[in-house]
Each structure stands twice: as C-alpha cells, then as structure tokens.
C-alpha cells in the first residue's frame, strides 16, 4: 500500500503573505512536479496552486511510514521555496490516506472555499491535475483519485444546492432582475451616480444579456469616464430624469442627501414608458429612491438592506446544504479508500496466483514427462493440482480481503509480508479505461 499524503496551506490557516511565498506559478509547476518525482521517494504528484491555497498531493514510492512520507513533502516545500521547516509546519496541514482523499473531495466540492459553493475551484483543480499529468506527475492512483474527486464534486453540485443562490449583492441583483423580466436581452440598465458596487452590478447584468448601458452623472465628464468601460451612453442630469423612460433597470448610488427618484415623477415616467417593468436598485446611503416607489405598479425597488437580506438568506441555505455535502464527501471518501485498497491489494493477489500456477505447471510438465499417463489420467492429475492451489489460497485471500474491507490497518503488513515471503514481483495495475 503506497501512502497517499498531502501537504497544503489555505486561507483557513495562513495569511496571504505566507501563501504567496508557497505559490507555484504555471511555469514552475511542471518543473516542480518533475523535481519532486526525481529527487524524492515519490511515485506520483499533483500540485494545486490557486490564490487561496497551495497543496501538494503525492503517492509515496515504496512503503515508508505515513510520517516519513509527510516529512518528505515538508522537506520538498522548504527546499523549493527556501523556507524554514518550522515556519512551514506552523501554517500548513498534513493529511494521510483517507484524510487526504476526504480533503481533496472537500476542496473540489468547494466545501473548503472561502465562499462555500463557489464554482471556480472545480476548474482550478482540473487545470492543476491536467498540468501535473502532462508533467508526468499523475499515475494510476492519483488518476483514479482526481477523476473520482471531479465526479464527487459534480454529484454534490447536482444533489445539493450549495452552488445556487447569489451570495453577493451584485449577483442577487442579477437574480432578481431575472425574476422580473422574461429575458435580459435587449434591456437597458441606467447607472445613476458612481460607485464600485454599481459598476460591478452593471457588469454582471451586461454579461447576463443586458445590451444597453446609460451612465448618468451630475458632471458629464465623470459620466463619459464610466460609460467608456461599458461602451455606454453618457449623460448629465439635473432635475430632469427623463432618461429613466428608457431604463429597465436603474442602479442608483449618488451622494445626494435627498431622494432623487420620487414616487410622483416616477409614476409619470412609468406611464410614458407604457408601464414596462422597471427594477430599481438603490445602493446609496442615504437612499436615492423614495421607498414608496415600490408601490408603483410594475416598478420594483430594492435597497441595499433588501439585497443584503437576500444574500444572508442564501448564505444560510448554503450553510445548511454544506452539512449535507459533507456527509456525501465522507461517505464517498470512505468508499473510494476501500476500493483503492482492494485495487492496491489486487496486484499482490494476482502475482501470488500467478506464482503458484507457474510452479504447478512446471511440476506437472516434469511429472508428465517422467510418467506416461493416459489422457484421462493426465486430466485428473491436472485438475487435482488446480484444486489444491485454489484451496490453499482460498483462506489467506479471503482473510486478506476481509482485512481490507474492515479497514484493518494490518492488511498493509499482510501484503508486505506476502510479497517478501514469496518474493513476489508485483506490478501496479493499469486503471480500467
């Protein structure tokens, strides 16, 4: 049994100052994987390096103890990044076997992410795996492990709702817009005032299909500056809000001390735009839009608190779902670990059978050569020999498989003992296609 070990650091345990020192650039990655395999007792390796985490997954070469394998990885990181082993130990975590598997599954399912359920991590793990595989890092065991991690990640995304529901104000606004309009295609968004949040929201709306952007500001120059980013129409407004006639979505974030958009004028504007839906997002504090605007037919007003409430409720849902996802991860990791052990025991079992059969064949040939037997007799001797092999191997193999299935730690020793006692030449299996 080759130990699967991992070392890593993430936003949970280390600040950015530390993580950036451990990061591997894309160019370094290939080289690092090869270096790890050539210099250390490592058979397979995958390195994952994102802005929130740096992790090394490795399968140790022969059969060192878990601790020895872990030490090897610490040493690798310390030498590669020229950092002291003490500082590394403080801000990293180490996992072995089942824990490594569980950790990778959690990472891939984005349960370990800063925002639980975020969608980028799956792609990042895939890219890391691909890069390491091209560098010759991933072999039979890590291939299986990562393939499984992707399918577990997908299972969790489809069976739980951890990935649904906006968890940022700007996405919440996009989701609400989608609940109002039949499509965002061809719709117009008006950004009134300036601000990072309103630009971000507008950006998400545009990437979701909104086609026209109006940027209204007190000063025309500022409006032009922002409009450039969206290929939008700049305009300066004073008290005249007629540009709202064309706006389906209004994002307001001015510094005005008073309400800028009031119920009465907006009612008039709504009539002039033939009561087409208008979604007003007021993220200004103090507020820009009179709350009563929400009472106008076909006008829907959300202020910053309303959007925060949507986000908070979505986050709560995700937390609940994360618990369910953790259960899936634990269960899948256990199953995978068992399969992996059987998979790792199989070559030994095969080799042992092979050896017994070869010995028997040789002896049978010798026997047939010495004694001239009739076909019938030869067949009888032959089948007797096969039966003896089968019966001799039956109990040891049964007990070995039991030991594996029970999660009995002894089985690794059994395997090692078998290999040494019988001087078996064990080759690792190729994974099934």
């Amino acid at each position, binding site marked *: 049994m080759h130990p699967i070990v991992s070392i890593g650091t993430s936003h949970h345990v280390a600040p950015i100052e530390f993580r950036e020192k451990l990061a591997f650039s894309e160019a370094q990655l290939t080289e690092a994987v090869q270096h790890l395999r050539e210099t250390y007792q490592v058979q397979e390796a995958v390195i994952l390096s994102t802005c929130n985490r740096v992790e090394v997954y490795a399968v140790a070469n022969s059969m060192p103890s878990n601790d020895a394998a872990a030490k090897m990885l610490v040493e690798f990181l310390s030498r590669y990044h020229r950092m002291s082993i003490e500082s590394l130990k403080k801000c990293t975590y180490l996992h072995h076997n089942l824990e490594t598997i569980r950790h990778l599954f959690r990472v891939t399912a984005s349960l370990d992410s800063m925002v639980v359920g975020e969608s980028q991590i799956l792609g990042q793990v895939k890219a890391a795996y691909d890069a390491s595989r091209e560098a010759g890092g991933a072999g039979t065991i890590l291939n299986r492990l990562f393939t499984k991690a992707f399918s577990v990640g997908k299972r969790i995304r489809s069976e*739980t*709702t951890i990935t649904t529901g906006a968890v940022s104000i700007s996405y919440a606004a996009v989701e609400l817009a989608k609940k109002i*309009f039949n499509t965002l295609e061809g719709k117009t968004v008006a950004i009134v005032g300036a601000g990072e949040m309103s630009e971000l929201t507008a950006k998400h709306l545009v990437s979701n299909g909104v086609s026209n952007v109006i940027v209204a500001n007190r000063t025309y120059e500022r409006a032009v500056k922002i409009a450039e980013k969206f290929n939008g129409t700049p305009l300066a407004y004073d008290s005249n809000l007629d540009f709202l006639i064309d706006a389906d979505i209004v994002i307001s974030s001015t510094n005005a001390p008073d309400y800028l958009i009031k119920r009465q004028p907006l009612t008039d504007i709504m009539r002039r735009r033939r009561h087409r*839906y208008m979604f007003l997002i007021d993220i200004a504090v103090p507020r820009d839009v009179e709350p009563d605007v929400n009472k106008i037919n076909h006008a829907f007003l959300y202020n910053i608190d309303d959007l925060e*409430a*949507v986000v908070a409720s979505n986050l709560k*849902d995700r937390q609940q779902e994360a618990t369910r996802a953790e259960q899936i991860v634990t269960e899948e990791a256990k199953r995978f670990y068992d399969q992996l052990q059987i998979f790792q025991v199989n070559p030994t079992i095969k080799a042992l059978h092979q050896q017994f059969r070869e010995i028997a064949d040789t002896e049978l040939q010798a026997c047939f050569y010495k004694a001239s037997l009739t076909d019938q007799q030869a067949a009888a001797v032959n089948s007797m020999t096969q039966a003896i092999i089968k019966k001799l191997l039956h109990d040891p193999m049964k007990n070995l498989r039991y030991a594996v299935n029970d999660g009995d730690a002894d089985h690794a020793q059994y395997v090692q003992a078998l290999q040494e006692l019988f001087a078996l030449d064990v080759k690792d299996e190729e994974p099934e296609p």
Partner: protein
Amino acid sequence: MINFLFLLTLLIYLAASIFQTLSLALGNRTEAIAIRSTIEQIAFSGTAIGFAFLTLFIPLWWLQQGHFPMTHWTDSIAFFAWAVTLIYLIIVRLTQLRTLGSFVMPVAFIAILISYSFATHTAALPEPLQNYWLLAHTTLIFLAYAAFIAAFGFGLMYLITEQKIRKKTDTLLDNLLPSLGISDELGYRCTILGVILLTMGVIVGSLWTQYIKDVPWRWLDAKVVATLVTWFIYVVQIGFRQFWGWHGRRAAYTAIIGFVAVLCTYVGVDLFLDSMHTYR
C-alpha cells in the same frame, strides 16, 4: 367497466393535482430538492396517464351513444377536462413549465368530479344536431375555454410572483414560478389563442344555424349572449394591451375576470337561465 375506469381517471387527476401543487409548495427548498423532482415526476406522469384514459372515453361514449358525446353534463364536462389537459400538455411541451399544472389540474379534476357524479345519466341528442358541425363547434369552443384557463393559471402565477418580489419575502430561489415577464407573455399568448379559437367556434356555430331546419333557433339565446360578453372581455384586454400597454398585473386581473366569465358562460347559464345550449 367504463365506470370503474372513469373512477380511476378521477383519482389519477386528484393525485396529479395534489402532487403538482405539493411540488410547487416545496419549491426549490434545499431540504426537499431530491423529493420534489420525484413528486413532480409522479404528478406529470399521472397527468399523462389521466389524459390518455380521458382520450379513450370520448370514442367509447361515441360508440355507446351513436353520436359525438356532447348532450349531457357527463360528456360535456369530461370533454372540457380533456381540452384543459390537452392545452396544458402542449404548453409543457413548448415551455417545460410544469408548474402551470398546479393551477389548471385542479380545475380539470373538479370538472371530472362533476362529470363522474352525473355519470349514470344519459340524454338523447335530437336527430338534426347529430353531425360534424357539433364536433367542430364544441371542440373549438372547449379548446378556447382551455386556453383561457391556462391564461388564468398564468395570471395567478404572475400575481404570486409579483407579491413575492414586492414583499421581498423570499430569496426567490424557493420559488419555482417563472419570471413576471414570462408569466405575462405566456398568459397573453394563451389569451390570443383562446380568442382565435372562440371566434372560430362562434363562426362555425352561427353557420351551423343556417343548416338546422327542424330545431327552432333564436339569436338572443342566453349562451350566445354570455359567450359574446366573454369574448368581448378578452378582446378588450388584448386591445388595451396593444394600445395602452395594459399588461402585467392588469392583464392578470383580466385573466381572472375572464375565467369567471367562462365559468358563467359554461356552467352559470345552464343552471340559472334557459338556453338552447343547455345540457340535460
């Protein structure tokens, strides 16, 4: 045997209505995500099976009675349920919006319940009325009714969603209903379809009167008047929408008023007024 099958159909429609509504009530709530899709699947399969049964009854009754079954409440209202389900299935086919079933399937169920409670009654159809005019006239009218009921369903969906968005009561994720724009647009399309079918049905009906010699005909028949009123309500809605932008909430309210008008035309007239069209 037919009676037993009809009872079975009734129960299937009941189950489909309950399950479909339950599925909507569960929504996208995280705890129920797996079970909800199963429930909806059951509801939809039920709808399809119920519809298949109902489709069988029409030729069966036709054979039994020797003419298109449209004389008694049993036949008529079962045919009505059939039309409602047909339009619903077509809409699901085109839009995947099974949630509409939560609103139209109960209507279909109640129709079958009424039909079942009259099931032992039969009535003879006067000889001069036994022809394909009857088939064309009633099929068009009932499909129009069904389209109006779908529009009514979309109207309710609109009002529920609007309420949720305005009151900010949920995260909108729990909500399986389509966006306001979609409910509104589909409701409008159903209304247009209904008006076209109803217009055709009325035209066929009035042409038919030219061919009936032996049955006295009067133009000021209660059913005819009620139908024209219903027709007028929907045409006015479409006109206002075209010229004054009356959509959304107003369209949804009109769809509900139209629904009441359809019920009055179809059921009310028979119960309280004297009409040529009365079912026996």
